[in-house]
């Protein structure tokens, strides 16, 4: 791969890793609070559908973003109610939310827009368009580093920049603030938090709300950032990959950034490798190239990261009185 190709792949990796990163951080906030969430996929779908629909109705990307966050947070609250208040099984609740969001988006979309659950394309004002950073054009002329700035750093929409800032914000929030300390504690030992006079339930709800908000942004990014409008099941399993990334990153925000970038990069490379003829092998079947990111993930997992220890209280409802 020459430098330019590499930059192109990297540029694509940035875009592809953005929804993963947002969803991964979303999962991080709730799992660090001790609530396991395999409903990331569903929340993203809710966000994407809300964003798509509201962008069509209002023509405003920002209102659509708010709607996405709202819809996704709503499902976060449902999950919190089931898992925290009702002490239900967290995996069951997550599975349920994936089904509900997918079904509801299609049913409402079908009824509102009569296009089989799709939303029509919103106007340009209803989308987040790419931003050229200052001096990008000039930088492009100034050697490889300049190209990197122009091609990879510049030219994404605002949600991408937010996504790449988010791990650092998350890190700061978790390690430097009272809220973060309590949130981490409640995922490890809720009784310790409870005896310190802090409400376990409130913290876990907060975790779910943040999770919902981030999934909402991820959904909005898919529907009105990368694409124009919601399409049935357009998350295409990214919520599950984000969970994998979360485990890979061992529930830490900055590693999450690198893991998601890695996943995005593998994905982007696979796109690029299609149809490439290898020396002695000839053209590799495209299916093999498409499986490559997944195979590499398994190899990395087996070879490098070893055992990932989840937050101790994860998945277990906090029961004070039996």
């Amino acid at each position, binding site marked *: 791969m020459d430098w330019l190709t590499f930059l192109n792949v990297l540029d694509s990796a940035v875009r592809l890793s953005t929804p993963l990163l947002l969803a991964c951080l979303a999962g991080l906030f709730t799992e660090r609070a001790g609530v396991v969430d395999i409903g990331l996929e569903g929340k993203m779908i809710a966000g994407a559908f809300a964003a798509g629909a509201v962008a069509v109705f209002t023509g405003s990307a920002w209102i659509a973003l708010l709607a996405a966050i709202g819809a996704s947070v709503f499902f976060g609250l449902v999950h919190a109610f089931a898992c925290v208040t009702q002490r239900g099984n967290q995996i069951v609740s997550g599975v349920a939310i994936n089904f509900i969001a997918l079904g509801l988006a299609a049913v409402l979309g079908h009824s509102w827009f009569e296009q089989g659950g799709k939303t029509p394309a919103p106007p340009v004002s209803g989308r987040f368009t790419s931003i050229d950073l200052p001096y990008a054009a000039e930088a492009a002329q100034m050697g490889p580093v300049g190209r990197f700035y122009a091609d990879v750093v510049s030219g994404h929409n605002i949600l991408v920049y937010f996504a790449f800032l988010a791990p650092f914000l998350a890190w700061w929030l978790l390690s*430097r*603030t*009272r*809220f*973060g*300390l*309590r949130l*981490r*504690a409640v995922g*490890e*030992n809720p*009784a*310790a*938090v*409870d*005896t*310190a*006079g*802090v*409400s376990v339930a409130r913290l876990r709800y907060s975790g779910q709300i943040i999770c919902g908000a981030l999934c909402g942004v991820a959904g909005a990014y898919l529907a009105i950032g990368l694409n124009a409008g919601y399409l049935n099941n357009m998350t295409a399993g990214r919520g599950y990959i984000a969970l994998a990334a979360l485990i890979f990153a061992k529930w830490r925000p900055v590693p999450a950034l690198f893991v998601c970038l890695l996943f995005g990069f593998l994905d982007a490379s696979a796109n690029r490798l299609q149809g490439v003829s290898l020396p002695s092998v000839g053209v590799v079947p495209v299916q093999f190239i498409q499986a490559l990111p997944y195979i590499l993930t398994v190899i990395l997992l087996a070879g490098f990261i070893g055992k990932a220890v989840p937050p*101790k209280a994860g998945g277990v409802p906090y029961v*004070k*009185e*039996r």
Partner: protein
Amino acid sequence: MNLDKTEPTAVPAAIELIGVSKSFGPVKANSDIHLRVAKGAIHGIVGENGAGKSTLMSILYGFYQADSGEIRVNGQPVRIRDSQEAIRLGIGMVHQHFMLVENFTVLENVLLGAEGGALLGKGKAEARAKLAELAREHGLEVDPDALISDLPVGAQQRVEILKALTRGAEILILDEPTGVLTPDEADQLFEVLRQLRAEGKTVLIITHKLREIMAITDAVSVMRQGRMVGTVRTAETSPEQLAEMMVGRRVLLKVEKGPANPGPAALTVENLTLRDGAGVERLKNVSLTVRRGEIVGIAGVAGNGQSELLEAIAGLRRPTSGRILLDGTPIPHDPRALREMRLAHIPEDRHKMGLVLKFETRENSILGYHLDHRYGGALFDRAAIEAECQSQMEAYDVRPPNSRLKTANFSGGNQQKIVLAREFERGPHALLIGQPTRGVDIGAIEFIHRRIIEMRDAGKAILLVSVELDEIRSLSDRVLVMFDGRIVGERSPEADERELGLLMAGVTGAGERGAA
């Protein structure tokens, strides 16, 4: 015997409980409890397991809400809705099961719930200063930046006390604080408590060790089956009287045992060294011999390699070097094969290792022996298993004797009996016993101790590990002391308690080096 009514209220009460009741579903943990704790006193609370001591204290600390009754703090009626409220009222609590976040530092744990602002920076600095001050005043030293999981239990407990004190506790509740301490550490703790009393603070302490009650408290309340049996002045009572109040019958506090009759060596450990997964040496060149018909006790503070030693012998950990011989043959690294060689193992932690709590008890009664052909071929012979379980439950007086009840639903003492029955009843030749009576009440302790002596008298070789020095001394025929992965000395059980305590703290050759 309730002295509250007779005694004039000369000293103001720090705490008064009036008719407090609390049920967990059908279990009445506390019913109609009256308690008065004088300000500036150390007040002990004793009772069998499940008597409701922890529940009562947790109500005081706002962790649970009483179903009915009144609480007064410093004479004022209060409603303690949550722990924050309790902390505001100056109540601090060190829980029986530590409420620490294991992968947090000491400082973070101290900070939790009392951060002093939305950002941690300022609060951290203040807490650090406060910790330094408390260390100076009370000798409660801990490294603020150490991870809890890296600290020995004794230090973890110090963190719990520090947590309470940094929050400005005037009334300190300690729930079984000494279970995990060396006698020396316990003495240190008592020193701290006396110092706190001198400062006018009130201390409520729960313990099963009557010796400690006698040593430190000013008054003591006894609970039984959710009720308050009575409160007495410590100076006016005796351990025997307290035990009787607790159990409702007379109890033998001293283990009766005849002289040992040691036979040939059964279990030999030679130069055993063991590194854990992280590469830390947990056992350093340990050698010992246990003969038939004797109990060799290993004393030591928790975390000095006793657990690793037991688990290495039991085939659960692979030694880095050294040999373990059973009746002269090197043992395989396989718990299953060891059981066939008649080596039984009572693990230290029945919940973590000895039992599958969600199994029916009859299933637990064959745990480890489940491949035995007595219990069936391709399919289990359920009648045989049932019979086995019934006979075990009968022999060990497990209550209720219901083999189909999930083991989780038995009380701690009965769970321990289930483990003992399983391991003892199959005629082992050698026994590894870890913490046989941890968290078990006096009545059950008596029973378990008797069984262990019986096994010895039947000619079994027994290696006993316990952090209860009293237990080691009363059961063992020889005492080995472990410190930092080494065996640092052998003493007779009659040896001076102080000397043993010093050995446990790693001070060898007490005389010369004690001063250094």
